[in-house]
């Protein structure tokens, strides 16, 4: 079966024993590269092969871990019970683009950037641009309910789904439609490999934008910035992107030169990691001044102190919070929306910083850090916590998480992915442990404190990174008695329990 596309060699087993869960990187820097290795890795090329693999595994009760590109940040692809890693990347066809109906049918294993490129070639866009677009797959997006930077206009990946085909844990192929009742696509999307392997899906695509208008705005405080975003959304405006950086995040995004005010250096916290590591490694090229470098070194050692000082001083020392707002699409609609937004943002107390910051952000939005690991070598670690709630609880959530995490880590945030009824907050935190064990302990304590605060504030523990292994312990709190439904789904679709076992708190 599948000659040349099955491997049990040690290098392959080690290569597939990971994802980008930062805790795994801490363990790695402690000298343990692959605590959980699969027994084999396979690279199917067709749905039939996927079915054959799953049937064989079900017969022998062998665990299966679906694998896209391993860019997940929650330990979702770690083969903690061994078994077979099924890498979908060879199933990468763009099966059909229906230009008239604005729909594309695509195989799961295609790398995001390749998909977008292929759609662009035909005059379309998926409008899905996660920072990891170059190192994640279409199937991985669906499996983990991913969100792109332009989700405010195009939706999260689950909003685009019209049809999903998947092979369940018995090897049976299903093809389900979002217009069905119930909408079974929403059972499968987000299931992170626990219910089956997504083989292809049909999603909504849009004509490539005729026009893109991006600007920067400055708001005195997080609160006024959030209020402005809420007003835009509730007036029927659909920016492609809104990103509000809190005081600290804005501060770190600001260039050295003062006249460059409010210009982001990079695409966001993912690229911030790169900044951290450039500051922490002797060879790294620092993009910020020496005193800022010291501040951050201090932040990693004495987070509570720095957070407190930053919280007290920054709002006054700073020029406020940076907001990036972008519109795109049909030329006429886009220009009208941008005009209406300008009125609204001025009314909300914003100061127009012009196109500069917007264009700069647009240009650097792909600046993803693939070199995150270096920061971990220095004994420090960085991670992100992306949560969401309704507008009425948003600032309480922001404060609660900051308060809970501040004593343990240096923390900052931005607000992105806005909806009519609420918004997500993307926290970035960094800390340092004395040694690997200490770092792991601190890391776990931060997550526990942070997510407990999130749950208590009535918000969701994940907006788009998923649950995997890292957030599994928080699933009972998140779902309460409804976990019974998830277990029932698991039982129906994967009766022998082979699909990505040990994940999602099942």
């Amino acid at each position, binding site marked *: 079966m599948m000659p040349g596309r099955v491997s049990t060699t040690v290098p392959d087993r080690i290569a597939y024993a990971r994802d980008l869960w930062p805790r795994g990187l801490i363990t790695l820097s402690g000298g343990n590269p692959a605590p959980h290795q699969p027994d084999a890795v396979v690279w199917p090329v067709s749905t039939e092969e996927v079915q054959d693999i799953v049937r064989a595994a079900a017969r022998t009760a062998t665990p299966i871990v679906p694998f896209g590109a391993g860019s997940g940040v929650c330990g979702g692809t770690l083969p903690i019970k061994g078994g077979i890693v099924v890498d979908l990347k060879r199933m990468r066809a763009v099966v059909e683009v229906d230009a008239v109906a604005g*729909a594309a049918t695509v195989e799961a294993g295609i790398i995001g950037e390749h998909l977008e490129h292929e759609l662009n070639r035909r005059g379309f866009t998926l409008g899905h641009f996660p920072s990891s677009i170059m190192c994640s797959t279409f199937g991985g997006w669906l499996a983990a309910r991913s969100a792109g930077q332009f989700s405010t206009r195009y939706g999260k990946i689950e909003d685009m789904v019209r049809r999903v085909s998947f092979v369940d844990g018995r090897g049976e192929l299903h093809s389900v439609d979002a217009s069905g009742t119930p909408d079974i696509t929403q059972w499968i999307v987000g299931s992170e490999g626990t219910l089956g392997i997504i083989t292809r899906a049909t999603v909504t695509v849009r004509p490539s934008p005729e026009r893109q208008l991006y600007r920067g705005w400055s708001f005195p405080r997080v609160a006024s910035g959030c209020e402005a975003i809420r007003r835009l959304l509730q007036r*029927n405006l659909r920016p492609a992107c809104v990103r509000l950086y809190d005081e600290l995040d804005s501060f770190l995004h600001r260039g050295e030169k003062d006249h460059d005010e409010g210009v982001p250096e990079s695409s966001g916290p993912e690229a911030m990691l790169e900044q951290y590591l450039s500051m922490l490694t002797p060879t790294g090229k620092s993009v910020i001044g020496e005193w800022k470098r010291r501040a951050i070194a201090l932040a990693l050692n004495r987070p509570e102190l720095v957070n407190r000082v930053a919280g007290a001083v920054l709002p006054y020392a700073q020029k406020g919070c940076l907001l990036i707002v972008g519109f795109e699409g049909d030329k*006429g609609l886009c220009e009208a929306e941008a005009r209406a937004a300008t009125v609204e943002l001025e009314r909300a107390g914003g100061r127009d910083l012009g196109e500069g910051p917007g264009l700069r952000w647009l240009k650097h939005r792909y600046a993803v850090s693939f070199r995150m690991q270096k920061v971990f070598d220095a004994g420090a670690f960085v991670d992100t916590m992306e949560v*969401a709630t309704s507008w009425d609880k948003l600032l309480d959530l922001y404060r609660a998480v900051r308060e809970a995490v501040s004593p343990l880590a240096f923390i900052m945030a931005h607000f992105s992915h806005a*909806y*009519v009824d609420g918004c997500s907050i993307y926290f970035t935190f960094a800390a340092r442990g004395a040694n690997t064990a200490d770092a792991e302990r601190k890391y776990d304590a931060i997550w526990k404190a942070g997510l407990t605060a999130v749950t208590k504030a*009535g918000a*969701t523990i994940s907006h788009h990174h998923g649950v995997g292994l890292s957030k599994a312990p928080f699933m009972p709190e998140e779902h309460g008695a409804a976990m019974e439904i998830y277990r029932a789904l698991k*039982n129906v679709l994967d009766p022998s329990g082979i699909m990505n076992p040990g994940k999602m708190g099942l």
Partner: protein
Amino acid sequence: MSEQTGDGGQAGAGGGGGDGNEAPFWADRLVHAVGAAHVMSENGRALVRPGAPAELVDVMRIAGEVGAAVGIGLGAHNAGGIDVDLSRMCNVLYLDETSLTVTVQCGITVEALEHALGERSLTLGAALPPWSRTRTLGALLAAPRASEASPRTGRFLQSCIGVQALLPDGTEISTRLAPRKATGPDLMHVVLGGRGTLGILSAATVRVQRRQESRAAAAFKLPTLPAALSTARKLIVVGGRPADLAVSGTGTLWLEVDGPAALVAAEVALAERIAREHGGEPVPQTPPPRIKARPHERAVPLETVDSAVLASSLVGDSVRVIAWHPAGACVVDSARAPEPPPADAPALVAALKRRLDPNGRLVAWPGAV
């Protein structure tokens, strides 16, 4: 909240009811749970009107203990079980004007909910057809129809961000409220669209809209029906988001837009440009004649909307294509009677039902197309 317009649907699977004209032996227990004024029983079946979630829980518990089937709005179709009428559970529990969401008990009708929202200059986000106005929120969410959708908000179901429900074994669930989540399958979608067979919705949180600064309506006459359908589809595909959009069987396209004045003007201009590309002309806007009685309706995916409409040999004004949204639309024909609900649930739904409800406690909702 009885929905008795439809025919078909499974009759309540027999429970442990009595014979003849007698009230079932468990009727007393129901009386104890919800009060005598809210129980009617005869011929081994009962109609109950719980007034609060705790009473609904009691009803479900009793049903479980005596082995009676439970359905919502089964009415005459209730052959021998408990017919639950949620019309007393119609309170607005929480109106969040900051987030523009409302949490309401599921026995409320669309009409009543719109009335309550109207007092605060709010409205349900989706443009719902007039024949849905007497439906309850529970019916809209558990047994959605193809006509309940609009370009801006998508299917009405997509306005729902959270539910409180009872599973067949009586377990109460309450999903976490957030605009979006990435915490596994969206479990709410087991009960939504489940036609009352996988759980009973007791309350839901749905998005609402504030009345917008300006509003406009426009109409275009297209040379042919296919040209009108192509215009509507193109408008959806390029990202037009009118509040409402409809195409008549004779090739007229109507739309309604609202929002900031600049956006409203641009939306109408976009529609006009696309209509002209298809040989259309603006015509004086008169609202399309109202369809009052519930028509025959059929969901069509955007891919095949033209062939599906043309194949249904439609002419004249009894036909209309409404409820356009990013994935499809709905063809309604007021000259034809509504269709009965589908006889069988999809295989996966049936399998999940066996797991969640091994004794077949919850029975389907008749009239739920």
